[in-house]
């Protein structure tokens, strides 16, 4: 059966089928991410002073991933333009670069960024114990400057068994630079470059801790929204890579031989999805990495 309007436009709307289809799909995607972003906004606005962390993510790596995604957006639009101009070889190369960009983005996320977080530890200190840990928090210094207080001590957990063993009474932490030297004015704001935990060790009694865990989704509202949104975004990148690979394989070549405009339209539709995924990341990056 011949499906009408896969290549030519319907006379009434001026659009071919898949174009309407992808935009309806993207509309539902806007609702999906919109729900998560609205949750983020209100969780953040509702967070107690100092409770929303700042500067826990690796900014250079995030910037690199942003650049990779933008580059892939350019290459996919170039792939489509090449098909329109009937330059198949150029299309093939642009598509390959797009796929590689998607794979690199995912690899950086899954092999480097996420596991690094799972290895990091943070303990929220009870209100009445904040004074006791002042040498690691520097809240007097922050109050003088009118900055929000610190309520969490972060770093690498030396005694992992403390997480499960009730007989272990304290956490032994190799402190992050900010907790190792909290009154240093250079620590008032996050740095661009990631600095690993120092070799300064702190012992924090479990009694004084309100909640402590590795940087997992359950650690805080911040990490819950970070992992949910970047996870869902990552699934979208994966979906895009799968579709692009399908269009890039010999199946695409066959379709090109039969009807080049049909392949161009498929690439345009997949590209629209890819640009949307890029667009989501444009908001994810500043909201989670920079602010």
């Amino acid at each position, binding site marked *: 059966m011949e499906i009408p309007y896969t*290549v*030519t436009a319907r006379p009434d*709307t*001026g*659009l071919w089928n898949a*174009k*309407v289809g992808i*935009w*309806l799909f993207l*509309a539902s995607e*806007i*609702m999906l991410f*919109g*729900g998560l972003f*609205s*949750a983020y*906004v*209100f969780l953040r606005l*509702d967070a107690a002073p100092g409770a929303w962390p700042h500067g826990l993510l690796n*900014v250079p790596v995030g*910037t690199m991933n*942003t*650049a990779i995604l*933008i*580059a892939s*957006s*350019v290459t996919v*639009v*170039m792939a489509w*333009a090449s098909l*329109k*101009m*009937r330059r*198949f*070889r150029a299309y*093939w190369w642009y598509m390959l670069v797009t796929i590689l960009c998607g794979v690199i983005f995912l690899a950086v996320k899954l092999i480097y960024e996420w596991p690094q977080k799972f290895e990091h530890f943070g303990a929220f200190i009870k209100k009445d114990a904040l004074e006791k840990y002042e040498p690691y928090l520097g809240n007097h210094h922050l109050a003088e400057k009118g900055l929000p207080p610190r309520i969490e001590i972060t770093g690498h957990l030396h005694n992992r068994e403390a997480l499960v063993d009730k007989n272990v009474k304290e956490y032994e932490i190799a402190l992050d630079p900010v907790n190792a030297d909290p009154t240093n004015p250079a620590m008032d*704001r996050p740095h*661009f470059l990631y600095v690993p935990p120092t070799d300064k060790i702190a012992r924090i009694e479990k009694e004084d801790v309100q909640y402590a865990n590795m940087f997992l989704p359950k650690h805080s509202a911040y990490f819950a929204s970070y992992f949910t949104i970047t996870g869902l975004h990552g699934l979208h990148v994966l979906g895009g890579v799968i579709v692009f690979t399908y269009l890039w394989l010999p199946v695409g*070549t066959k379709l*090109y*031989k*039969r*009807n*080049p*405009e049909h392949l161009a339209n498929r690439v345009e539709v997949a*590209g*629209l999805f890819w*640009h*949307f995924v*890029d*667009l989501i990341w*444009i*908001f994810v*990056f*500043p*909201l989670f990495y*920079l*602010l």
Partner: protein
Amino acid sequence: MDEPHEPMAGTMAEATSHDEHAAHDVAKHVRGYLLVGVTLLTFTAITVFLSYVNFGTQKANIAVALLVATIKAGLVAAIFMHLSSEKRMIYRILIFTFFFVLGLFWLTYLAWYDPISR
């Protein structure tokens, strides 16, 4: 990789003259696409840089960052997604979506007045 032969003539005979016209249009836009790509990368660098500039309050910093992000998103939507010259039906779909998203944010906002969690 096999270089495919010229597409078979005849299958798309009625669209051929239109295609040639479209191909010419696309060629004109290629420079624009590259330019937008460079602009987006520059704006990314600007966003990162501005996040280390103190605008007084954190709220001000967030506003600046979101402004730059909105400009970037607008460029992607207008140029890469061809929204600057799209058919009316697509705009209609998006206008509907816009109001539904506002409704969605409003529903989340209502949680602030939830008597159970407050």
